[in-house]
């Protein structure tokens, strides 16, 4: 077991869809979507302004402090 370095906070501050959220350090994008009870196949995630087109990469994407996520989906429209 490694001791976290002083500059690595144990809780990360995220901005998700414009609102502040906090998650534990080491949380992956897959973990985070699961915690929100979101089905990854039904949403699209933009991570720090980069659209993630490969859903298989969600598990290996570890969130960082200050990360900005946009989670979108399809809604009714004309």
């Amino acid at each position, binding site marked *: 077991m490694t001791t976290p370095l002083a500059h690595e906070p144990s809780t990360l501050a995220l901005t*998700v*869809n*414009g*609102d502040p959220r906090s998650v534990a350090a080491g949380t992956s994008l897959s973990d985070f979507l699961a915690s*929100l009870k*979101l089905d990854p*196949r*039904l*949403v*699209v995630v*933009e991570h720090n302004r980069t*659209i*993630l*087109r490969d*859903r298989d990469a969600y598990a290996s994407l570890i969130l960082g402090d200050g990360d900005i996520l*946009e*989670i*979108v*989906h*399809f*809604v*009714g*429209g*004309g």
Partner: protein
Amino acid sequence: MTASVALSPDLDTRFEIGGREFRSRLMVGTGKYASNAQMISAIEASGAEVVTVAVRRVDLDRTKDEGILHHLDPQRFMLLANTAGCFAIDDTIRYARLGRAAGFNEWVKLEVIGDQQTLLPDAAATIEATRVLAAEGFKVMAYTNDDLISALRLEDAGAVCVMPLASPIGSGLGMLNEFAIRTIKHRLSVPVIVDAGVGTASDAAIVMEQGVDGVLMNTGIAAAQDPVRMATAMRLAVDAGRLAYLAGRMPRREIAVPSSPTTGMLDR
């Protein structure tokens, strides 16, 4: 409900946009319905194959309804993501890319709005965004004004079809400039789909009588008192207008011409 009775193939042909073949000339939106069940019934009644959707933030608190994919089967309908609500080129491109990342197709119904009050499109910005997205491999269906030059520029920029308005979005004013729409249809090589402004079935028939390839509508169905009946009416009207166009109408003349024989009358 199995209301989508296709016209017999000897009456009308299928048509193609961007290498994909379509049967129904009516495309419909999914906004403004009272319920998802009503939306599905109306879409089925319309016979549409192409169904537009918008890209928006997920409500993480779930106080609102879930995403539309819980209700619409992407295997059954071609989902066409729009960029509704975008006023800037950058935003529009971002929304188009988000829509594509949902993973269903490379198509986008491109809208860049130029004015909040009228929701009229910004043609210059739409042309620029079309150029960028077409280069990225998008199949761009470009919403625009009923203006020939904008339509020609969109075709040059790589749009797979051009979608001039009948009248402003959600206005229900019907076809305001038949001449402009016919001119666009005559001059473009890519298909022309009239988008926005259809308020009732006769509007849809008049649109199709101009010879355009199809029509897209949302509010005209969703805001009717009975959307499922109106969707059926729109399906019939689109077919009626298309057939009337193919049949070729009689010339207009401002004199009466009798339909019955003028000979053989009694006591003459």
